[in-house]
């Protein structure tokens, strides 16, 4: 499998995405076609089937229409996300080509000049501007690679959001788990850490089931976000499709930091290990459905695990954790500790 790199952030076969999109579009159209036929059947059934059986039949058809409608909408949204992704990667390819063209132009000027070619990128001499141009183009290439990372994250998040919620969780689920279950959460966090440390992990990891969504759903930060949601729902201030979110920040919250610290010291015995591992993260929600006093809400948590974030001591600038030298050697010598991004998605039914 070919995966894009910082040297070639535009890599990848977009025809695969186009094929996927066409298939999803086809599924959406098939759903709409079936909905149309079911509506016609439901309507004509009332002409020759009355009584309780007829009413039950119409109700059964309506439930299937509702589900097909959700499937069709999910496909349409995923398809739109695919279009945006293909467009974003196309721009990234153009930007990558432009960076290499800039580098090549500056190199040619340096090579063709009468001046000797110097080691490194000197800031003096007649070709200093051209060396600077190469450096700037390389920097720009780094930014383009980050844009690709972002495009992947956004596409992945938008696609995962359309999934109907295989992960359903109760708020108190994590709290009532016994020690072994909590051990699973700690193990799952360790797996993520090892993936990060190996340097061989996927850059983007999507998580929609297992213990991590359950643990994150039960984290203090998500509880606060859920309470805010419930207040808005009670006040009638939220509609289907509304989105918002909040950031869990270690840098501004001493209580959060001390809770994470005690969790690390005790090996996850008293805290929520996935929450501690994620540290600072972005949490967003989207209201999918509101019916009576119940709302269906999809939550998305996104996080970047990087060497810098892993090494830094929150609240204390310019100071690194004791493990930082080992992590830096692991990165420089062994190629480990490459950045990874995690996207965790789950759906909850919230009563208000």
């Amino acid at each position, binding site marked *: 499998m070919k995966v894009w790199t910082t040297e070639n952030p535009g890599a990848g076969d977009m025809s*695969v995405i186009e094929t996927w999109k066409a298939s999803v579009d086809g599924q959406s159209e098939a759903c709409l076609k079936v909905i149309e036929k079911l509506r016609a059947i439901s309507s004509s059934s009332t002409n020759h089937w009355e009584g*309780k*059986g007829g009413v039950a039949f119409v109700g059964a058809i309506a439930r299937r229409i509702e589900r097909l409608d959700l499937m069709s909408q999910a496909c349409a949204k995923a398809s739109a996300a695919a279009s945006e992704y293909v467009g974003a990667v196309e721009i990234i390819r153009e930007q990558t080509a432009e960076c290499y063209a800039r580098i090549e132009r500056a190199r040619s000027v340096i090579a063709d000049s009468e001046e000797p070619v110097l080691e490194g990128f000197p800031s003096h001499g007649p070709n200093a501007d051209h060396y600077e141009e190469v450096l700037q183009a390389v920097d720009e290439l780094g930014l383009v690679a980050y844009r690709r990372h972002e495009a992947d994250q956004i596409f992945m998040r938008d696609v995962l959001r359309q999934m*109907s919620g295989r992960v359903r969780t109760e708020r108190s689920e994590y709290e009532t788990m016994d020690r072994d279950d909590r051990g699973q959460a700690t193990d799952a966090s360790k797996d993520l850490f090892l993936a990060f440390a190996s340097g061989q992990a996927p850059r983007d990891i999507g998580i929609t089931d297992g213990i991590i969504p359950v643990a994150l759903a039960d984290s203090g930060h998500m509880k606060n976000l859920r309470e805010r949601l419930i207040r808005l729902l009670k006040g009638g201030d939220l509609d289907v499709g509304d989105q918002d979110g909040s950031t869990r920040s270690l840098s501004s919250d001493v209580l959060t930091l001390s809770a994470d610290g005690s969790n690390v010291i005790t090996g996850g015995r008293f805290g929520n290990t996935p929450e501690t591992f994620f540290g600072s993260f972005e949490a967003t929600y989207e209201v999918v459905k509101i019916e009576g006093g119940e709302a269906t809400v999809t939550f998305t948590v996104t996080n970047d695990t990087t060497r810098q974030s892993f090494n830094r001591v929150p609240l204390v600038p310019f100071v690194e954790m004791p493990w930082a030298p080992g992590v830096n050697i692991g990165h420089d010598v062994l190629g480990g500790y490459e950045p990874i991004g995690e*996207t965790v998605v789950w759906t909850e039914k919230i009563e208000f």
Partner: protein
Amino acid sequence: MDSTIRIDPAELAALANELGDIAPILSTVYPPDVSACQSWGVTDALKDFALELEENRREVQESIQILADGVIKTADDFAEHDASLIANFNRILPELK
């Protein structure tokens, strides 16, 4: 029995046939192979979505088929009921004369 009931068994059977005919429409599109995608996370997300879509499609298709089978059985039951009513009527007809 519901006093307001009004059923045409033949029409009901036609409904069931229509339902049976539309269920396969959903199976005409299959999730594509995304194994050659270009980003690990994206590939997994697309696979997960396709799998969930397929799971939903299969469930809805099966449920429409079950509904169609139920309607066929209902139509048969009513046709049988009508036949029984006619037989009863024919049996008591001589006595009415």
